[in-house]
């Protein structure tokens, strides 16, 4: 089949959604299809949020099948449209009123939210099948748009290369340094950690300077490393040699970091409001679920640092938990083959 994978392009930004689209195209090609990625730029601010959605209505896509992914690519018109949804425009839904949303309770916000929710419902309803990347995204779709969907879980990037290694002296996190990922929780927690454990937070983002400043203020600069972007080889080794992974985003959609940590045999410390991460991290089984406070996260780090038996058990269960993830069923369900 000729399959067009459609996705939004947030220019100069690279994250989980971009990786998902690229991996999907690769896997479709590996399954014998002709697959291409079509992307249109999107602006996330409220004033311009409808522009790209409307633009997608005019994009001619000549293909046997269209697989639309994130907002607003599912506004594409095609008689055979399948949606695999990483997320909608969350600033207008569950993240409204949050510091990283420009949707509040003013008239203009509420009007825009109404129209966006209505458009979303109609555009998504055109699809012959709706899949999401996680149970959390499916639950949001049901809650906000009244639409049923099925979660379709896929392996994270580097799945075949990630491997277990010795439990080192640092907790690791690879994430965009943005507000919704809350990397500051890990930095703040270091002030409470008793065990001789460092933290390594890989990734780029607008919060980097803030994190460094905060580390200086609470005098933990000698225990925190912010290496910025790390290449794949480095990433694999940093996962392999970590004590554990700390990942505490706010209401994450899926969270590759969790799955990559599990693949590397590392338990994950997370927060009770971390969304999709909690589909994988079961407290005391594959990781530790905290109350999301720096003190709570520090307590979890200390617990793992001082209980090697627990570390081994959680890490083993974590690796087992993701052992059956595969692209084959994902490609089969999306293409209906």
């Amino acid at each position, binding site marked *: 089949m000729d399959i067009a994978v459609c996705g939004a392009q947030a220019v100069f930004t690279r994250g989980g959604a971009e990786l998902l689209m690229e991996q999907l195209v690769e896997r479709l090609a590996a399954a014998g299809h002709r697959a291409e990625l079509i992307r249109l730029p999107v602006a996330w601010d409220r004033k311009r949020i409808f522009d790209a*959605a409307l633009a997608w209505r005019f994009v001619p896509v000549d293909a046997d099948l269209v697989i639309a992914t994130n907002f607003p690519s599912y506004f594409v018109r095609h008689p055979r449209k399948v949606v695999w949804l990483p997320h909608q425009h969350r600033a207008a839904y569950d993240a409204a009123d949050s510091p990283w949303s420009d949707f509040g309770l003013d008239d203009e916000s*509420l009007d825009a939210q109404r129209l966006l929710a*209505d458009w979303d419902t109609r555009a998504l309803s055109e699809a012959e099948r709706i899949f999401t990347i996680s149970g959390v995204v499916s639950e949001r779709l049901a809650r906000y*748009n*009244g*639409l049923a969907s099925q979660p379709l879980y896929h392996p994270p990037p580097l799945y075949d290369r990630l491997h277990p290694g010795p439990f080192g002296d640092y907790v690791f996190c690879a994430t965009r340094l943005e507000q919704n990922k809350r990397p500051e929780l890990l930095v703040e927690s270091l002030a409470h950690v008793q065990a001789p454990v460092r933290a390594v937070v890989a990734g780029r983002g607008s919060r980097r300077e803030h994190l460094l400043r905060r580390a200086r203020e609470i005098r933990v600069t000698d225990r925190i490393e912010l290496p910025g972007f790390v290449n794949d080889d480095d990433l694999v080794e940093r996962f392999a040699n970590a004590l554990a992974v700390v990942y505490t985003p706010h209401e994450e959609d899926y969270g590759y970091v969790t799955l990559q940590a599990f693949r590397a045999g590392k338990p994950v410390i997370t927060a009770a409001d971390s969304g999709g991460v909690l589909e994988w991290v079961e407290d005391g089984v594959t990781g530790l679920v905290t109350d999301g406070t720096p003190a709570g996260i520090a307590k979890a780090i200390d617990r793992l640092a001082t209980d090697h038996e627990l570390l081994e058990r959680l890490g083993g269960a974590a690796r087992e938990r993701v052992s059956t993830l595969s692209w084959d069923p994902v490609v089969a369900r999306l293409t209906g083959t």
Partner: protein
Amino acid sequence: MTPPLIELLVGRDTSPMARALVTRVSRACMVRASDRALGPVAARVATSARAPGLAAAMHDRATPLAVVVARDEAVSNELRDRAELLITDDPARLEQLGPRALLAPVHPVDAERHLAIAPFLRERWRRRLRLPSPFTVVLGFPSPTGLRPETEATALALASAAAVRGSTALVALALGTPVVTDATTAALLGATDGHDVLVAPASNAVEVAGGLAADMVEAARLGREARALVERRHDVGDVAHTMLTRLGVVLTPPAVPLGSLRLRLDELHTPVDASPEQRAIAACRALTGARVA
């Protein structure tokens, strides 16, 4: 641009469906009664086959004519041959009225006038207005608190769920309100228990609505299906659009970029002059100097 002028021939026995249709048409056209001198008109619409002036209108073959036929009205062969459109809400009469017949909803509502509001947005509006949440509205069922008729639609638009029966249920459905109703109302509106509405006896309809108000996922699903039911079966807008198109008053926008913009917006049921349309027009004006068709 001046909207097209429609001459209205009003019969004494104008049905609710005909009234709803004319109201909807009046939002796109200038509708004037035939009791005063009008210049050339784009079309004529008679609200009854017995409407005064219809006989004369039939002789003016240059002006397209649509007639709303009441259930008990006879239709002459002459009228059947002359009118471009015969509109009925009785499916049993379609064959008798011939190929120019158009079926209209028995219980009409102008869906465009009632914007669908998802439950999560209702909750946000209630926060904005400092109203309690959840918020259940009871209409037509026994209730200790009454609503003034002029506030019913607003209350329904803000409700987490509503126990409502009778004709007001149609407005609730159009607004995408999660509705609990009785079997009679559900049957009249073609709603299915568990799909578009929940059906409950009067004795516990309010209690069922309270439970629905607390279940955001089920409320969102029912609200979406309620709106879809209205658009599928009760929206007089579709009939008005078909009528105006077949009378030659409204033409399908040309398949050029500016013309197709409105088509794309209509697919998404976007209100006229909403911000996406205004932005698109502004973006295109520099290229074309033209307004959207």
